[in-house]
């Protein structure tokens, strides 16, 4: 029995929505990062699925880029976060508002 591609896409959309809601409602920076990862991987799933459906490698190629960028982003983001925690003793993104106009 094969799982139809629609199922993968539905799963992808569900994961992306979960990630989006997470980014919007959670205040802890770490959770925010995890939610972003969730969104990225939801997109990855959609890429792979569609690559398979269309028999084209472009989608799979894009996934590699997304993975690399995600890794880099996490490295930079977490190091910034560590510094913020050291100076301000918090990772609550609502309290980190130095750039308020």
């Amino acid at each position: 029995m094969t799982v139809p591609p629609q199922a993968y896409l539905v799963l992808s959309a569900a994961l992306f929505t979960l990630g989006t809601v997470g980014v919007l409602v959670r205040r802890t920076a770490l959770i925010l990062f995890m939610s972003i990862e969730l969104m990225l991987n939801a997109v990855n799933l959609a890429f792979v699925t569609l690559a398979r459906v269309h028999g084209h490698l472009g989608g799979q190629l894009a996934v590699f880029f997304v993975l690399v960028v995600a890794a880099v982003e996490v490295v930079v983001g977490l190091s910034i976060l560590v510094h913020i925690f050291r100076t301000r003793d918090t990772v609550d993104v609502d309290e980190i508002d130095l750039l308020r106009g």
Partner: protein
Amino acid sequence: MEAWVAPWLVGLPLAGALGNGLAGGRLGKRGTALVACLSVLAAFLLAVQAARGLLPAEVPAVRWVGVEWVAVGDLRVLWTLQLDRLSVLLALVVTGVGFLIHVYSVGYMADDPDYARYFTYLNLFTASMLLLVLAGNLLVLFVGWELVGLCSYLLIGFWFERPAAAAAGRKAFVVNRVGDAAFLLGLCLLFTLLGTLDFREMANLLRDGGTLRGHPGLAVAALLLFCGATGKSAQLPLYSWLPDAMEGPTPVSALIHAATMVTAGVFLVGRLWPVFEAAGQVLHWVVAPVGALTALFAATVAVVQHDLKRVLAYSTISQLGYMFLALGVQAPPAAFFHLTTHAFFKALLFLAAGSVMHALHGQIDLRRLGGVGRAMPLTFLGFVVGALSLSGIPPLAGFWSKEEILGAAYAGSPALWAAAVATAFVTAYYATRATVLAFLGPARDPSAHPHEAPPVMAWPMAVLGGLAVLGGFLGAQWVGAPFHKYLDPVFGGHGEHAADPWTAVMGVAVASAGVAVGAWVHRGGREPHLGALRGVLEGQWGLEALYDRLVVRPGRALARLLAESVDARGIDAAASTLAAAVARAGGAVRTWQTGNVRQYAAGVLAGAVVVFAYWVLR
């Protein structure tokens, strides 16, 4: 003769200026002086060579054509230099007198910290003046004209930390601007009429029988160019900058504001002689009266000046008036003869005055000088020779040229002649007055200990003194008037001058009377009261007050008006209103920048949704 001489004549002093300007600080005083003097000496030797090359009667003007400069429509201007008898004569005066004054400056400026800057300017001036006189077309001449104006400004304001010097430089520049604007208009009009700016082509177009002779536009162009000449040569009504220009170092006054630059206006009329000749009555009705009037006016004002250099400055204005008078009565060789002798004796007078200043730490006030002649016999002798030559006492140089101008004025019109003779009397009077008050009588400042000038200053004075004595014989009839023969081809037909013994005798009698009256009135350093006349003369016949009311005060009022209303309430107000509006707009939208990451994320999401919705629903 080769044409290459021309660019070298201009280039050598220019190279001196570049050398001293770029490396003057590292050459030391001796090196700076050597570079400056030798570059001018080399130019002088080249000019002598050029003059000898032009001696054979059949040699035409030699032209050096450089690169093309302007090519717009019909206007094609090349960097053309022209060696003809007139330009070479001026080049000889500029480099010869210029070299002597360079040498004199070595002593005069010895203690000045800005030695290199001084000689840079002086060399630059020499190069600019040579460009002016050697120019082959009017636009190149204009470049030289503006460059000498710039050098004049720089050297008048050489001691710019003195407010008076800075103001004098500015005044010279601004007054000259008025004349230069007219010059430029005249240049444009001339091009419109003739279609060329080249002197040779102009002369060909305006030759006898040319269709443009007597064209009214030509008269207007000649008038405008003459306005330019009055600015540069300090004639009425643009004379007022020259007395103030005496704020500059004295050798500068001798070179630029007596011997060379101020004669550029005379040279301009001589160079454009075909234009002025073809322009109808401009010479007769404008140039000659302006010259005669200026000569008389400046001579009378010189009588009451207390500053020795200002006496000489008004005297220069007056003598330049003589030159324009000579041009106006169709005797250009007489004008250029007087230009040459005037360069000798006026430079001598200035150098002698500078020598007094040098010895007395800048003291130049005739009320405080006196008896200086005993301590400075050589300077005294130089000044006396210069003053007698200026007065027109035979056989000194000034006599020959002035006598010729008087004769030409007599042939022109009795009124002009009367003004010229009256000027001759006043000239002899004020020259004697200055000599007596400065050098004779009791010493009025017991603390002063004058000393004779050092050799480096004395030698140039001695050479100029020799020229001021002997230079006049160049134009004497009984030695064949070689000077006039030399200039003959330039002004063709105006070379011969009717020797009128009567005017010569009259001139000498009047000059001797002036000397005698001056010596008697001021015997023992006396100064008569003169009553109301003194006020009139010191006020320059009311012209000073008139200019103040007509130009200076309205100008200041206009400036204040513009500063307070147009600038403050117009331009400034517009700028600050605009700035305030931008600041308010910024203040309104700054609240959008909350600093809250989750709100930004919501914004991104909303944007993405909108774009996506647009794609799907369109």
